């Protein structure tokens, strides 16, 4: 009949487990072991503390530009929900996730202090390096997911990106490929409300980012991204689905960047302090701290102890970092790893720089 309605009955779920007061929804509580709950807490506190420390180092001129993560630490719920054989394909605001996965903090410091290739990542982490070109890493996750499928490996590839990244053509292409091939991929969008100075509402016209999944008939869900339990649960479910052959999932984490976009940015130019204050009250760490305290897992004296412990951990990493950079690294290293084997012209160039360096001694 002429005007038919193709009813897609599409609804976007919004998942939240832990409210701002630290009260948990019993029915949805993933009931994680106490050890893991504490580990999650430590991970978040480490994320916050390391971020703060990096900011100081940056202001001291010891680090270059980097992207602070403050306010988005509940992201580690995602890392925790994954298995070691799962791959993580991050963007540039996932330092806590990377550390959870096993990236040494000194590697992070080396990278942001402008030493690049000197220390390769530990083997077997299944963690790709930071990806700076926005949106470009998602199709790598699809490729890795297809690889897993081809090899019959029961694993998933989880890729992280921001709200701004959803505007990129590469986002669309990766989502489409993943859905067409039912690849075991989790698309984790950290919707932190801003892409530098562009607010989420002007980034795209849709009411939610999660609903973009419908364009591919893919599972999509919105999650309180400041609620580490909800993040955990949503990613776990997506991972289970992916492993079972159920294909990809888009997860929109509703969160907020409390700090600047990068250390080169001045957010006061484009957003109000009220907005920031509002979100400050939804802090993912405070909330989880209350929950753990209420649950009796965290005593009042534990909190400063953990904080101190983490500070010590960070300063050990700093020391290792300083040791590495003081090793008088050979600038000629920069010619390595462009190719497996250096071609003749590159050898000549290396030779030239070598001579230059010798003469300038």
């Amino acid at each position, binding site marked *: 009949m002429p005007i038919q309605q193709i009813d897609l009955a599409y609804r976007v779920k919004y998942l939240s487990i832990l409210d701002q007061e630290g009260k948990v929804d019993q029915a949805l509580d993933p009931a994680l072991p106490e050890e893991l709950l504490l580990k999650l807490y430590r991970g978040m506190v480490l994320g916050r503390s390391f971020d703060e420390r990096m900011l100081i180092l940056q202001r001291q001129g010891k680090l270059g530009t980097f992207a602070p993560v403050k306010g988005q630490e509940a992201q580690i719920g995602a890392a925790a929900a994954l298995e070691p054989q799962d791959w993580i394909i991050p963007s540039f605001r996932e330092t806590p996730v990377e550390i959870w996965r096993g990236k040494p903090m000194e590697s992070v410091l080396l990278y942001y202090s402008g*030493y690049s290739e000197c220390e390769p990542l530990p083997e077997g982490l299944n963690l790709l390096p930071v990806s700076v070109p926005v949106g470009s890493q998602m199709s790598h996750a699809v490729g890795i997911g297809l690889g897993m499928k081809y090899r019959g490996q029961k694993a998933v590839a989880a890729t992280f990106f921001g709200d701004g990244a959803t505007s990129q053509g590469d986002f669309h292409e990766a989502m489409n490929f993943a859905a067409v091939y039912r690849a075991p991929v989790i698309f984790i969008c950290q919707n932190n409300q801003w892409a*530098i100075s562009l607010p989420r509402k*002007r*980034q795209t016209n849709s009411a939610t980012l999660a609903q973009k999944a419908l364009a591919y008939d893919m599972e999509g869900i919105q999650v309180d991204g400041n609620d580490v339990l909800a993040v955990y649960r949503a990613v776990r479910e997506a991972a289970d689905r992916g492993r079972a052959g159920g294909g990809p999932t888009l997860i929109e984490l509703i969160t907020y960047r409390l700090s600047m976009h990068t250390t080169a940015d001045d957010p006061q130019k484009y957003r109000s302090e009220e907005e920031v204050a509002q979100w400050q009250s939804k802090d993912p760490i405070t909330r989880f701290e209350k929950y753990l305290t209420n649950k009796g897992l965290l005593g009042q004296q534990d909190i400063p102890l953990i904080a101190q412990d983490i500070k010590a951990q960070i300063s050990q990493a700093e020391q290792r970092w300083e040791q590495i950079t003081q090793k008088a690294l050979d600038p000629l290293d920069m010619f390595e790893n462009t190719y497996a084997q250096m071609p003749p012209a590159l050898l000549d*160039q290396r030779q030239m720089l070598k001579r230059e360096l010798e003469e300038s001694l």
Partner: protein
Amino acid sequence: MAKMNMVQALNLALAQEMEKDDRVILLGEDIGKDGGVFRVTEGLLEKFGPERVLDTPLAESAIAGCSIGMAIYGLKPVSEMQFSGFSYFAFHQMEAHASRMRNRSGGRYTVPMVLRAPYGGGVRALEHHSESREIYWAHTPGLKMVIPSTPRLARALLVSAIRDPDPVVFYEPKAVYRAFREEVPEEEETFPIGKSRVARQGSDITLISYGASLMATLEAASQLSEKDGVECEVIDLLSLSPMDDELFTQSVQKTGRAVVVHEAHATYGAGAEIIARVVEKALLYLEAPIVRATGFDIAIPLYQREKYYLPTVERIQRSVRQTLAF
């Protein structure tokens, strides 16, 4: 006349052209309220409103594609790629459409757009923020490719680029943005696209450079004059496409020797084309091989190693001495 840095000079060019011509429209990421991550578009949203200063979603290909459409429609879009390292997301748009529309429509439609992008190393930036890959554009027929070296020239060239009837890719040397100030006249000034200039006169050897590398080249020239008594003629290329091969060829005919300086990779870089033109037009004047003092054939490293990658004053002097000793 006010002393301005390059950022201010570019801002002046944009503001004045927007004032003069309501076809000029700006598009880009964070160019509005934020004034651009380098502040080149600072104050323009306030002055000209959101219809003329479009803070766009994060999508370089659409920025270029929209600019192409606007230009065809009769506007003069000036779009910003936040860093040249991300302009390749828009490469196919520029290659397939901006560069060809005049040709493939038999002249019916034209694309008088400018694609601005900060480029190059030297400012402790992140990965993918320091590339110098101007050849991708310069090798593409139908595009013009310009790189200014000083505030005053940046202003004049940007005005010329905006008024140009064809698409111009306009790379801005980040390392020069705030490096020094120069008198920039308030009144209109243009500089012809496709022309180079003599940045320093000399008779012993010709140094050909452009963009941020020009600073190091001029410094090398002045040290060589002091220390070695060698007088370098320095050519500031300015336009990579169309290329002004006359000016540097004449200079090489005079000096018999040349060094090319740029931070782009040596292989298939601008130096190669410069050498090829000299060989074609002035082989017999050459008394020594032309040496390339350039970036290496590796991605520009993170900032701690940049000083080894970029053509430094020392590397340039070395190259000059090597050429003179040949």
